[in-house]
């Protein structure tokens, strides 16, 4: 990624511009600010060394682009370049673009992976939007053309001296990048250039407008006609011919086709394995045996048609949008009852998509151009989806695509009166799809759909959340071979292991049938007994708490049998917004959570844990090579004491309304903990001064996630009341492996003897010191390992609430005083491999 450096005489200016630009670059950009000089009395100036450091901070072989405000900034930047070694220096460019507009444009492009030359061009053009709006622009940018403009363009182009046809061979056709190249080439020349898509019979549009060019919808193998007029016509013809003929320097591989039934990315290499077993990621556990039903989520095909009454088409579109919105509201209401309010909020995001101004502008323009509303809608969605799909490797973005298809299809149904989407299943089956959309998932007939299998899909997608809430065995990411399974083939799904058996033998069928029967029975019994207290066979009381991310979830988790909240993730309050919630806002949320739980049930609130995998837009931690080893959790909070204290004061004030406890995440040293506790002390004093109430005996504790905390637990325990073991992070940090990286993920299993030993030690030391100890990671809900944890001495578990009924059910069958349990613990602790551990547990 190209790095960006901002040089200004003023430090606050450079830093604010960096923050502004980062927002536009989705916080992904590598960007550094070098502003001011280190002299508190006269801080205005530029410092070549600072600039050098900034360049080195964001340097990669993709290059660095430096923006300067003026005067000595430029000279200092040139100076800084001289200190770079020669190979680096070649990759660093000083950019003369306008300071604010240029930096913002460059950052957005850099974040999208654009190359240096393109970024420089865009940055230099960045001022155009402003000058055009203010009417200072003397070039006549066409924008998205109206019918009037189209006529004019057609007329001028028709009279042009030079016309030439080209067929575009590159995979993506005239998408954003090549369109930008054309615009750059044409802009500022003494010539007019118009392009039309002959294949799609479009009008001519001005080659100076990016939007117009994109609107030509030039796809691979489409033929375009380019008309040139003006004094520089010939020169431009030569330049553009060369770009077209060299396919804009892009790949000419065949474009992936989106069709209605087939998988979107049919890859010939992705055959079915000989044993017929497909492996994916388990989204929701369980077992199923049933015939396959194949479905596919794509936008329905709409024929391109013209109309001559744009006003009527526009009003049809408005009606369809309104109806679709109403319908999504209904699905949301229905889902709120069935799957919970939080999950149902997913549909709010879809309503926002319906109202996206950019999308609507595009559609309106196309209707005005004479296209029918359905085609205008469908083709505009395609553009947006294409744009998203170009940003590859981002699971959040691909989640958006499925939402767009979902919303888009709904609107098309309203527009055409046809039914494209309903998955109408009334016989038992295992549903196989390329990807499942949230509304499809929410509208499934849970009686008939015994399992869900998808080629793609992410663990964090909306659909995954819904599938889990519905309790349907679900596996995602099974790959393209899934679409090769013939309709009605009987298959076996083991959603515990993430395996789909497409050629099951009778033995396997019998085995899984047994597992399924058992699974259903446990599910039913567990559900019935979920509200009983957590208790073992020998009558020992075990606290079973829930992990929650939002105060609104609390009633739901109580209904699933939670006896309190062992982990309240406060960062959800901070996410999906543009600035941090203030003290009062936080206080209200914490207070409402405390009140929902009453005076006794615990509410353990973890202070803000951002960084790592939880980015928050307005928190600028900066690009980190390795965010999981960077500024996250308590480390970030201690670096922003004012923000942190707002949270601490809010927590203290809310503690007056229930059994609220404060937990600090990512503690690695006693020093950090002491600092955090000192800030808490300051907050108490501040509240005392204002005469505000709080629970003076409020309990404080820490998450055990960093191995150093276990190693020095004896120094930490005297300072606090409780510890809670966060197994997900602890195992990653113990094993120095990232669990989202498939090649090392298995190393982070909590069945690793090292992880088990460190957990045992934590529990033992806490119990010996008379401090409360609990566990709130994924391991806590694993009923297979639960007996071992009981044997280690753990008496408090906090888990995602869906796991509580089964956990309590299994708990009732365990005798903590039995000699077998102690032996199991000893065996597990002396095991030499995760496999050996699993053997003991089975």
């Amino acid at each position: 990624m190209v790095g960006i450096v901002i040089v200004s005489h003023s430090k606050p200016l450079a830093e604010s511009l960096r923050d502004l630009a980062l927002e536009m670059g989705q916080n992904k950009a590598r960007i550094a600010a070098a502003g001011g000089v280190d002299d508190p009395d006269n801080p205005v100036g530029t410092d070549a060394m600072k600039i050098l450091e900034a360049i080195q901070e964001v340097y990669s072989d993709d290059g660095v682009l430096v923006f300067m405000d003026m005067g000595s900034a430029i000279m200092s930047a040139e100076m800084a370049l001289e200190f770079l070694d020669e190979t680096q220096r070649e990759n660093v460019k000083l950019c003369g673009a306008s300071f604010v507009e240029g930096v913002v444009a460059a950052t957005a492009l850099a974040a999208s992976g654009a190359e240096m030359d393109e970024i420089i061009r865009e940055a230099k053009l960045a001022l155009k939007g402003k000058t055009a709006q203010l009417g200072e622009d003397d070039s006549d940018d066409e924008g998205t053309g109206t019918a009037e403009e189209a006529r004019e363009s057609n007329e001028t182009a028709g009279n042009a001296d030079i016309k030439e046809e080209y067929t575009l061979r590159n995979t993506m056709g005239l998408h954003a990048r090549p369109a930008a190249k054309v615009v750059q080439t044409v802009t500022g020349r003494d010539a007019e250039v118009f392009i039309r898509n002959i294949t799609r019979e479009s009008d001519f549009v001005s080659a100076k407008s990016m939007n117009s060019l994109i609107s030509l919808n030039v796809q691979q193998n489409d033929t375009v006609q380019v008309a040139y007029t003006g004094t520089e016509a010939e020169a431009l013809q030569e330049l553009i011919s060369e770009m077209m003929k060299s396919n804009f320097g892009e790949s000419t591989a065949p474009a992936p086709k989106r069709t209605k039934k087939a998988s979107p990315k049919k890859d010939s290499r992705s055959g079915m394995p000989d044993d017929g077993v497909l492996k994916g990621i388990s989204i929701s556990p369980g077992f199923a045996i049933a015939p396959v039903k194949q479905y596919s989520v794509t936008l329905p095909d709409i024929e391109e048609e013209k109309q001559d009454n744009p006003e009527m088409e526009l009003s049809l579109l408005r009606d369809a949008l309104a109806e679709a919105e109403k319908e999504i509201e209904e699905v949301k209401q229905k889902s709120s009852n069935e799957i919970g309010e939080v999950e149902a909020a997913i549909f709010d995001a879809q309503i926002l998509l319906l109202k996206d101004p950019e999308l609507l502008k595009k559609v309106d323009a196309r209707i005005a151009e004479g296209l029918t509303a359905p085609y205008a809608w469908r083709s505009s969605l395609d553009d947006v989806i294409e744009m998203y799909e170009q940003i590859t490797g981002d699971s959040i973005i691909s989640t958006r695509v499925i939402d767009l298809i979902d919303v888009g299809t709904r609107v098309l149904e309203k527009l055409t009166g046809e039914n494209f989407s309903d998955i109408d299943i009334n016989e038992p089956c295992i549903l196989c799809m390329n990807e499942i959309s949230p509304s499809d998932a929410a509208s499934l007939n849970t009686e008939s759909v015994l399992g869900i299998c998808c080629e793609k899909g992410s663990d964090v997608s909306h659909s995954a959340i819904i599938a889990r809430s519905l309790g349907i065995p679900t596996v995602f990411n099974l790959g393209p071979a899934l679409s090769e399974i013939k309709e009605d083939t009987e298959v076996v799904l083991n959603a515990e292991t993430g395996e789909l058996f497409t050629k099951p033998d009778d033995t396997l069928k019998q085995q899984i049938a047994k597992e399924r029967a058992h699974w259903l029975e446990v599910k039913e019994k567990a559900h019935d007994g979920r509200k009983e207290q957590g208790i073992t066979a020998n009558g020992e009381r075990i606290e079973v708490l829930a992990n929650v991310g939002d105060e609104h979830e609390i009633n739901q988790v109580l209904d699933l049998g939670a006896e309190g909240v062992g982990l309240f993730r406060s960062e959800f309050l901070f996410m999906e917004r543009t600035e941090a919630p203030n003290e009062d806002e936080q206080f209200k949320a914490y207070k409402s959570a405390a009140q929902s739980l009453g005076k006794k049930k615990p509410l353990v609130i973890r202070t803000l844990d951002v960084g790592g995998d939880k980015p928050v837009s307005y928190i600028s931690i900066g690009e980190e090579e390795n965010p999981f080893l960077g500024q996250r959790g308590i480390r970030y909070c201690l670096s922003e004491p004012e923000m942190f204290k707002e949270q601490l004061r809010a927590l203290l004030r809310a503690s007056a309304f229930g059994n609220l406890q404060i937990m600090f995440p990512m503690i690695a040293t006693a020093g950090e903990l002491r600092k955090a506790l000192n800030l808490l002390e300051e907050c108490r004093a501040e509240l005392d001064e204002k005469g505000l109430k709080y629970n003076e005996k409020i309990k404080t504790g820490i998450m055990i996630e960093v191995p150093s905390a276990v190693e020095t637990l004896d120094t930490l325990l005297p300072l606090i009341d409780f510890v809670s073991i966060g197994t997900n992070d602890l195992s990653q940090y113990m094993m120095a492996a990232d669990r989202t990286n498939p090649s090392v993920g298995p190393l982070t299993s909590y069945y690793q003897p090292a992880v088990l030993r460190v957990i045992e030690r934590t529990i033992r030391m806490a119990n010996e010191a008379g401090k409360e100890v609990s566990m709130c990671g994924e391991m806590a809900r694993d009923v297979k390992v639960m007996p071992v944890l009981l044997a280690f001495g753990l008496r408090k578990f906090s888990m995602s609430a869906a796991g509580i009924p089964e956990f309590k059910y299994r708990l009732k069958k365990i005798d903590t005083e039995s000699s077998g349990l102690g032996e199991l613990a000893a065996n597990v602790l002396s095991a030499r491999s995760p496999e050996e551990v699993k053997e003991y547990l089975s």
Partner: protein
Amino acid sequence: MITKQQVLDWLRKSSDVLEENRQYLTKLDTAIGDADHGNNMYRGFNKVKSQLDDHADKDIGAILKAVAMTLISTVGGASGPLYGTFFLQAGTKMAGKAELDGDSLAVMFRAGVDGVKMRGKAQPGDKTMIDVLEPVAQAIENDIKEGKSVSDTLHHAVEVAEKGVADTIPLIAKKGRASYLGERSKDHQDPGATSSMMIIKALSESVG
């Protein structure tokens, strides 16, 4: 010969004279610039002075380079990279030297001045420090070639520098902030040229 001690004296004297003339330089800069030259030069050279003791065991080249780095990161205005370049180029040519003879002095000045010209892209007559530095570099080169002593050469250099400063008064600025003023920059003495003259004078006084 210029000894290392004399070089250190030069830098200390430069710092002192720039401190004394802080207001004066700022006043000159207020008329045609952004009123920061006095403060900027004081800030940079004051820092240089505070670090001189650390430089005691370095050779002259290394001392000049260290000065360059300090100026680059503390001056703040355009004179930071400009003077920084002067000392950096001068220091690079003087690497390893414990003392400077006449030839070295000429080479040092030429390297430094060419560096400033390259950095600021200014020519004589643009109403900048080059109007002092370029004639001084030429005078030193000529005097040494003619066989004058280092001391005499430097005395002459001061005269040339003073004339250079006076010559900037009628000029119209073509570079830097003053160039925004166009015709109105006439009849003002250039602050950068003035500080350059002061630094050259400090060298002459240190050598005696």
